[in-house]
C-alpha cells in the first residue's frame, strides 16, 4: 500500500547526510554532496567532505536531533570556496542533500563564469512631486545648481560593496531610477496599460 502523507509540504528534496554517508567507504571522506535548496542559484554550491563524526544518543530524542552528525566540510557557496574548513552539524539532519556521483563531480563543480555586466547605479534621482515643489520654492532666491534639485539616493552599504557600483561624477549609469513605475522586468504583467 502506498504511503499517504498528510500535512504541509516543504521544499526539501533528498536525504539526510547520514543516510548518504553512512553507507560509503570511509564515511565518504573526499566525496561531494550538494543541497537542493542551493540549486536555485546559477553558481554551483556544494560541500566536500573532510571529516565525519557520529554523535552520542541525545538525552531528549526528537526527529530533529536523532539524525544529526558532525562534519568538517570545504564549503563552496555560489561559486566561492571558503578558505577555512567549516563545521556542519545543526543542518545535517535536513533531508535536502544529494550525493554527486564521482563521474559527475567535475561537471557539477565547474567554475561558473558570470556574464560581465557591471551594474552602475545613479547617484541621484528626481524628488517626489511635493517635496520637489518645496525644495524649488526654498531655493528660489538663493543661487543653486542643478544638483540641488536632485535627490541623493541612499544605497545599502553592504550591497554597494558586493553587487553594484555607484556612478562617479559625470559617469553614465547603466540603470536609471524614476519616481514612477520604472521599466518593468515582465512587460506581460502590464499588458494593455499605458505606462
Amino acid at each position: 500500500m502506498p504511503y499517504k502523507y498528510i500535512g504541509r509540504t516543504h521544499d526539501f528534496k533528498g536525504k539526510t547526510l547520514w543516510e548518504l554517508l553512512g553507507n560509503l567507504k570511509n564515511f565518504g571522506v573526499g566525496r561531494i554532496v550538494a543541497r537542493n535548496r542551493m540549486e536555485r542559484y546559477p553558481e554551483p554550491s556544494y560541500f566536500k567532505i573532510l571529516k565525519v563524526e557520529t554523535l552520542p544518543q541525545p538525552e531528549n530524542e526528537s526527529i530533529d536531533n536523532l539524525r544529526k552528525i558532525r562534519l568538517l566540510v570545504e564549503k563552496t557557496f555560489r561559486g566561492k570556496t571558503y578558505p577555512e574548513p567549516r563545521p556542519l552539524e545543526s543542518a545535517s539532519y535536513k533531508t535536502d542533500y544529494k550525493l554527486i556521483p564521482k563521474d559527475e563531480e567535475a561537471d557539477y563543480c565547474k567554475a561558473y563564469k558570470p556574464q560581465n555586466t557591471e551594474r552602475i547605479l545613479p547617484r541621484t534621482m528626481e524628488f517626489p512631486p511635493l517635496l520637489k515643489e518645496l525644495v524649488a520654492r526654498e531655493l528660489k532666491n538663493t543661487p543653486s545648481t542643478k544638483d540641488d534639485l536632485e535627490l541623493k539616493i541612499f544605497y545599502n552599504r553592504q550591497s554597494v560593496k558586493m553587487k553594484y557600483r555607484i556612478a562617479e561624477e559625470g559617469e553614465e549609469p547603466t540603470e536609471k531610477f524614476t519616481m514612477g513605475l520604472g521599466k518593468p522586468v515582465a512587460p506581460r504583467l502590464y499588458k494593455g496599460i499605458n505606462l
Partner: protein
Amino acid sequence: MLRIINNFNFLRISATEAISYSTSSNTLPYNPALLPVKKSHRKPRWVPIAKSKIFRIPKRPVIPEDETREIRRLFNDYRNHEKSVKNFLVEKHNTKNQASLDPEEILKSFKQDLAVCHEINNKWNKENKILREKRLAEELERDIAFAKNRIEQEIIKEQELFEFTEELVRKEKEASVNFITKENIDDAIDKALAEAVDYNFAIDLNGEKIIGRNTKPVQEQDKISLKQ
C-alpha cells in the same frame, strides 16, 4: 463560545440606527466613517484548529519567476526612494549639520525669535491679568459672604446652647425643693421609720402574689376543712 459571541453581533447598533433613535430633528447623512468598527472574524489565538480544518493543506502559491523579479524590483525601488527621502530630510534638519553656521547669525535669529516669544507672552499675560483680577474679586466676595453666614450661624448656635443650659438649671432648681437637707433630715428619718415599706413578695403556683417577707400562704388543707 465563538458562536455565542457571533450571535450577539446583531445587537450592535449601527450609526444610521443610532441616528434614527435620536430625538434631534436634523439627522446626519449616511457616512461610512461613523459606522462601528467591524471586528475581525478570526478565531482567538488560544482556540485550537477547527476539527474540520485539521487535515486541510493550504495550497502553496506558485509565482512565476518573472513576476517574482518584478515584485522584488518594485519593492527595492520603493525602499530606496523612501530611504533616500528620509536621509535627505535628516541631513537637512539635523542640528549637527547646522553647527557650521555663523554663531552671530544664530544668536541674532535666536534673539528675534525670543522677542516674538516675549511679545506673545506679554499679550497672554495682559489677557490673563484681567481674567485673574475678576476671578479674585469674585472669590473674595464669595468668601466674605460665607464668613458672614458662618458668624450668624455661630451666634444662633450659642444662643440655643445658652437656652438649653438655662432650662436644665431651672428644672434642677425646681426638683431641689424636695431634697433632704441638714435642716429636715431628722423629720425625714422619723417619717421613714414610721412608714416602713416591705417590698418583698413571693409567687405561688397559681401566680398569685403573696406580699411581705414573713406572710405565710393559706394552707390547702385549711381551705378544704373550711368548706366542710
